[in-house]
């Protein structure tokens, strides 16, 4: 049964997309939405609790947390997108080629994948940021460096599964071979299985960035990246809880949204399994 895919078929999907939409909207319209300049300091007003002027309070340098949160969608989403763009294609290519070619190529590629997986994630990320210097792009590279093997393994399993089914044989019989086969037939089969993994990883990326900030290797001030904000806020977590709470809530919300979208897409792709 080849039903047309209709993306907006579930409440999960609607809700998730709505939250993500709000975040994207905030990123695009930040200068108009944010009540203050996100890097303007007012040291006299530092660590102020939420008030009518500063709806979410101010941070340690007297900057408006709400404005930073709104502007923060930009580096945060950019980081997430960048890590995805870097790690997913590498992982997919390695995994599909390994699964499809088999033999020596598979052993070589999966060997490399296993070596990268065997790396202590943090060591690799810290060392990389250490060597390249802090910043958005370098943080993204560092996180992608350790992130792709998971996708490679997934894609390989998926490809192997397809090889065993008659489907690929049929496609090959029709003369669809090589890259076209991989791109047009194997790749789409990997997509659904990627979704859950991706959705789980997105939050992990923001948190990894937060971890880097906590250890002093974040994106570099004054960028209002959410991970850095939460790391900053944790210094005063017992007395000025709101400084860390709002970026924390934002990360949770975004993570839930990503997961809702993943679940929703899955359900939309296949109504027999909600």
């Amino acid at each position, binding site marked *: 049964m080849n039903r047309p895919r209709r993306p907006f078929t579930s409440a999960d999907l609607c809700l998730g997309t709505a939250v993500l939409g709000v975040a994207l909207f905030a990123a695009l319209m930040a200068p108009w939405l944010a009540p203050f300049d996100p890097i303007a300091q007012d040291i006299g007003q530092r660590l102020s609790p939420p008030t009518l002027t500063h709806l979410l309070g101010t941070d340690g340098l007297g900057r408006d947390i709400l404005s930073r949160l709104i502007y923060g969608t930009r580096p945060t989403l950019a980081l997430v997108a960048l890590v995805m763009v870097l790690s997913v294609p590498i992982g997919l290519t390695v995994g599909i080629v390994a699964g499809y070619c088999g033999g020596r190529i598979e052993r070589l590629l999966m060997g490399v994948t296993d070596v990268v997986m065997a790396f202590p994630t943090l060591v690799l990320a810290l060392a990389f940021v250490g060597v390249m210097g802090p910043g958005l792009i370098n943080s993204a590279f560092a996180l992608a460096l350790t992130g792709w093997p998971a996708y490679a393994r997934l894609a390989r399993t998926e490809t192997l599964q397809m090889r065993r089914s008659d489907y690929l044989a049929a496609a090959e019989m029709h003369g669809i071979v090589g890259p076209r086969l991989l791109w047009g037939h194997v790749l789409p089969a990997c997509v659904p299985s990627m979704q859950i993994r991706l959705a789980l990883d997105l939050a992990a990326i923001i948190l990894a960035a937060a971890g880097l900030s906590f250890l*002093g290797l974040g994106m570099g*001030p004054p960028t209002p990246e959410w991970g850095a904000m939460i790391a900053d806020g944790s210094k005063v977590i017992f007395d000025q809880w709101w400084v860390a709470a709002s970026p924390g809530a934002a990360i949770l919300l975004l993570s839930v949204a990503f997961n809702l979208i993943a679940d929703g897409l899955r359900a939309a792709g296949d109504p027999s399994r909600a």
Partner: protein
Amino acid sequence: MQCRLASILAGLLLSGVGVAAGVPGTLVVVQSLDDIVSLDPAEGFELSSESVFTSLYQRLVQSDPDKPGALRATLASDWQPGADGQSLVFTLRAGATFAGGHAVRPEDVVFSLQRAVRLNRSPAFILNELGWTADNVAGFIVKTDDGHVRVSWPARVGTAFVLNVLSSTVASIVDALEADRHQVNNDSGNGWLHTHSEGSGPFRMRRYIPHEALVMDANPRAPLGAPLLKTVVIKNVADAASRRLLVEVGDADIARDLGPDQIAALRGKPDLRVFESPSASVHYLLFNGSNNAKPVLKNPALWEAARWLIDYDGIAGKLLKGQYLVHQAFLAHGFPGALDTTPYHLDVPKAREILAKAGIAPGTAITLDVFNQPPFNEIAQSLQATFAQGGIRLQILPGVASEVYGKTRTRTEEAVWLYWIPDYYDAHSTASAFALNREDGTQSIAWRAGWHIAKLSAQTIAAVEERDPAARIRDYEAIQAEVQRSSPFVIALQERTELVMRSNVKGYRQGLTAEMVYYDRVTR
């Protein structure tokens, strides 16, 4: 076994965990110990190792904890300057013994000082100031009889300066017999002393576990009297928020290095007390004038404008409230000869005017290296904001301390925010860093900034050779004023140590420099 299980279950149910009464006679200090390289006084030169050397070892003379600026006879009971003005004869304290039981002999003094020079580890340069080198030191430190040691020096410096140098931790007296006994590969016991103490200080090391803890037991034989505590436990707790909880609950008696906001939250709690004491640590901004890729860094107008672009009061009064004072000369307040004038304050229009006059375009971008820990991040962001108002775009590059230092050593940075702590209790330690450029590659701060100051350097050398204390003070005041006015450094802040302790902790003393930490009179 069953019995033990039952007691465990009962224990879990009834556990009065957390409500710490503490162990009687034991003081628990929480701080970060991650910086310790070695606990051998001839090698260790980190803040944490310095802070325990005074407890574990003694020097011939030491700073008097009760009289800032004065020296106190410690392992030496007395000293006599030689007629040539280039030597001193020390009389050793009668009956003094090391914690291990051996008597302190002139041989130990000779061994310890010569050893420190020959090992040539990080603090050796302090002794090098006297002209001692690995090759010549044997002739300058000699035993005269069973109670006396004669110390002489080739450098043209006065006895006051020499005594100050000998009060630094690198000049600690080590038990030569023990060091020899634990010698491996001719290391004069360096490997052993990494994690053990063989000194005569009020405490003796029971155990040192790197990155975890350092435990010291009282030394009942201590020449200046046994300490009041039985044990001091210094625990490595790297996270400041965790340190705060420990002292708040009472599992720790003293917590170091808390942020200003954490201190503010604990101030006024009934069981806690905030201990405050000035520190000799001075924070400054440095422009690297030897960086040829960016000529603007050489421009004195930039230096001048920068002095008007720092929100001194905002940082010291609000951002890092209580932990910093505005201080604009290189000698810390409290040091003899310190210049306490603060002519500069935040004045954006004035800075803009200076920059415009010098033709430095608004929007000029400069990278600023800082350490990636509090409070440097906060300070850097404050600078970034005020410099932006003046038209200078600062790009902050946070880094690990040794990485930042690495850049300054190779002079590859543009601007950097650093702090300075004197290596020994003498003005020359600091003056030779800020106002002396021998142009021979000696790594002074002036050399690092590419600041060419033939005249000022001569003045600095003259000051250390000056033997009249009052004239010396006048010299240093003049040098400071010049540095304050025209240097590529913007000296901005002086630190104030703030610790939180349980209110039953009494008798804790701390001085200006890193090694002036005294646990011997503490009770709880």
